[in-house]
């Protein structure tokens, strides 16, 4: 029983450390932004006297030493109080939860697109004929090297302004999701395809593939039942990068397509010096990272039985 609990405890401790590190870094980074935070609260051209400014300073504890502010901040986070936004007159919690769904929707569709597209392209193009693979490699390289905002603007120009097939910005219409999802998902699909293809080609050279072919299996069964699963192992390792790209990409995509979402709120909060909102988004991202990492560790064991506990060989 104890042996089963130990890894879970270690995992949780690690998660706490990761979240703490992210929160500390963002706290430090925000202190480096020059200017008086009171200005951010009252606005630049508000007519506020020095007494009231002093009052605000006291209320938000800006008069305390930095370390006390930091400890205070950690204490509030630990008890789940994210504080109130300086600008929006709402609690940070409300701001984030209101904006969460559009971002989640975007990220999920983009992930689905990336996975389906990359698996399909990999299986179809890593055949014995070279041309499909070469063309696909070229397209991947182009997509990977295109910055996300540029890709978004390009897609908008072609499909919305010229062809008029898809709406320019969020209209509540499901069609308005198409371009943002493509912009976010395509670069991820391109990298995943490269990794999957490399893995698939390595796996297709393995002795067990010869065994499978010698059983009379059709080529597509050899790939889908044997080789593909092996090629997903290196791709799983990329998941951390994958999540980071989704979060970072959401900021750009939501701004380019004028969609609501956490990314847009975060960008707005940084330029407004709305510290509590920025801190809230950072803490949320850290938690998402930690949860995804835990899920991926579980997935490794699902895909590769050799990594499962207590299935190791007992004797020679």
């Amino acid at each position, binding site marked *: 029983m104890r042996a089963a609990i130990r890894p879970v405890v270690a995992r949780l401790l690690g998660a706490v450390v990761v979240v703490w590190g992210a929160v500390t870094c963002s706290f430090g980074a925000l202190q480096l932004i020059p200017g008086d935070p009171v200005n951010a609260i009252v606005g630049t051209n508000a007519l506020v006297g020095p007494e009231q400014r002093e009052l605000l300073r006291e209320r938000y504890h800006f008069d305390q030493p930095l370390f006390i502010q930091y400890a205070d901040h950690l204490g509030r986070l630990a008890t789940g109080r994210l504080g109130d936004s300086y600008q929006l007159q709402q609690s940070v919690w409300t701001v984030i939860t209101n904006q969460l769904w559009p971002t989640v929707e975007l990220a999920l569709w983009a992930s689905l697109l990336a996975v389906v597209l990359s698996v399909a392209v990999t299986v179809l193009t890593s055949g014995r004929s070279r041309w499909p693979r070469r063309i696909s490699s070229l397209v991947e390289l182009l997509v990977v090297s295109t910055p996300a905002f540029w890709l978004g603007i390009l897609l908008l120009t072609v499909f919305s302004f010229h062809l008029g097939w898809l709406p320019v910005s969020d209209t509540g219409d499901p069609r308005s999701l198409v371009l943002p999802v493509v912009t976010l998902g395509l670069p991820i699909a391109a990298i995943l395809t490269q990794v999957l293809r490399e893995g698939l080609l390595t796996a297709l050279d393995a002795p067990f593939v010869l065994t499978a072919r010698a059983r009379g299996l059709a080529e597509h069964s050899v790939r889908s039942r044997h080789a593909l*699963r092996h090629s997903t192992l290196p791709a799983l390792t990329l998941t951390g990068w994958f999540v980071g790209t989704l979060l970072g990409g959401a900021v750009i995509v939501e701004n380019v397509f004028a969609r609501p979402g956490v990314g847009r709120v975060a960008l707005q909060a940084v330029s407004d010096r709305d510290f509590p909102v920025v801190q809230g988004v950072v803490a949320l991202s850290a938690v998402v990272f930690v949860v995804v990492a835990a899920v991926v560790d579980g997935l490794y064991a699902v895909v590769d039985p050799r990594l499962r506990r207590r299935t190791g060989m007992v004797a020679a």
Partner: protein
Amino acid sequence: MTATAEPGGATRADTRDSDEPRPASAVVLEVAGLDVRFGSGPGQVHAVRDVSLTLTAGRCVALVGESGSGKSTLGRALLGLAGPNATVTARRLHIHGADALAFGPRDWRTVRGRRLGLVSQDALVALDPLRPIGREIAEPMVAHRLVARRDTGSAVRALLERVGVPDPEQRARSYPHQLSGGLRQRALIASALAAQPDVLITDEPTTALDASVQARILALLGQLKADGTGLLLISHDLAVVEALADEVAVMHEGSVVEAGPVAEVLTHPHHPYTVALLDAVPGRRPRASAGGPPGAPRAAGGGADADGDPLLVVTGAVKHFPVARGARRTAVDDVSFTLRAGETLGLVGESGSGKSTLAGLVLGLLAPDSGEVRLAGRPWSRRPERERRAERHTLQLVPQDPLSAFDPRWTVARILGEALAAVDVPRPDRRTDALPLLEQVGLTDAHLDRRPSALSGGQRQRVAIARALATRPRLLVCDEPVSALDVSTQAQILALLRELAGSLGLAVLFISHDLAVIREICARVLVMKDGRIVETGPVERVFTDPHHPYTRELLSAVPGEIGRAARAGTVPSRPAEERTEMTEMTEKN
């Protein structure tokens, strides 16, 4: 050259019933004038040249030859799996009466697994490591629509039972890495048998296995043959061929140079290559120094310890390794031995017996949990590494697989230079100092700028020996130095080691699972089982008059002449089959 079976085998085009008894002489595969070429243009490699074979149900044809002789390529070409770069041509290729030269991909798929099954070398990688063996075994039945996917359970159990896997219900859910080498190989054979093919193409089916497990797998293949399955046995091991084959075809550089009934070819070889191959088999080779330990007379010049204190003294060495849930496994259990300069000591045992752990203790790479290792009269174990490093050059390792023991991007000059740097040879002199080392092991300056991948297996092992000699060691630890080599290369490397040990007065700890090799090179032998030394003595005495039952079991498991001698001379009356069956049950749970 044709390895023709009994003539007149009527080809059966009818669809089979699995219960129908097969006629003994049914020809399954007939090939004449088969050529396989890789690539095109001037870089083309002609891997198989004008080979003709006939495979018959219930008979075993063996293909022997060194690696690179085209055996495996031929086996794959018969399955239509020679690869995308290969061009296969033949005058005639009939599989089960159908003309395979006209086959499209779909026709080949109906033949693979159903008419011809494949058993490859190492089941750990030849079975999909991510799938339980039950699913792997069921796959051919499903692919050929013999059984519906959900009804495969009982058929899989029956197959596992047939190949001698105990507790089939549970084993079907195991993954390859959870099984021992022998059980894995049985599972691979079961999966090849699943669609009831008439012929199994077995490509080095026992090469990755220990001698006693090998004997059991050979017995299983013999049983399958008796049941009416034809075998194409691809092997470099003549002892295995002798044990199983009815006919043999000797391949050399893509051509069959000699073919005929196995007894005739092995006893009266005609072609010089066959003669050379037979002479190279360990145990058949003449022993260079049947008398005293090799090099002993000259050893006095090599070191002052020759008649004084032994060079290496191991007393009561114990090493445990922690395993899951706080338990521990004893890898080396109270082992004591001594080794003198100029002496070659053999260490033999199956994999998992603790040989390599013991080598690690001697090399000072592992610290013993109790007991002591002394080198040249001074303590060796339990010293801080900082202090020990200055003396490390006195003992060197020759690894099993030099390809993975070398940095593949380094040239030979750099590999040797690194070893020379360890004994403070200044950088500008390293290249000139490397040359005599290469010459000492029979290579030339032409090899200095090659990378390991551009060397043959034998040349790589020579470089490994040169690297070990670079520090002027007094003790060589050779961990399975010839297991990865062909028999003829093996003979050359063993001769080289023997000569070097003699001329340099080296002490050699020679680790091997191959009894014939040990017998050829060692004067004294330690037999190791489960971490303990169960028997020790002069090699001739141990081989002709083994005292411990485990030594007897090891000896009787050797296929071919030595094994026969052991079986005839010293093994008690209990038949070998019965005993192997019993050990089989304890092989793994």
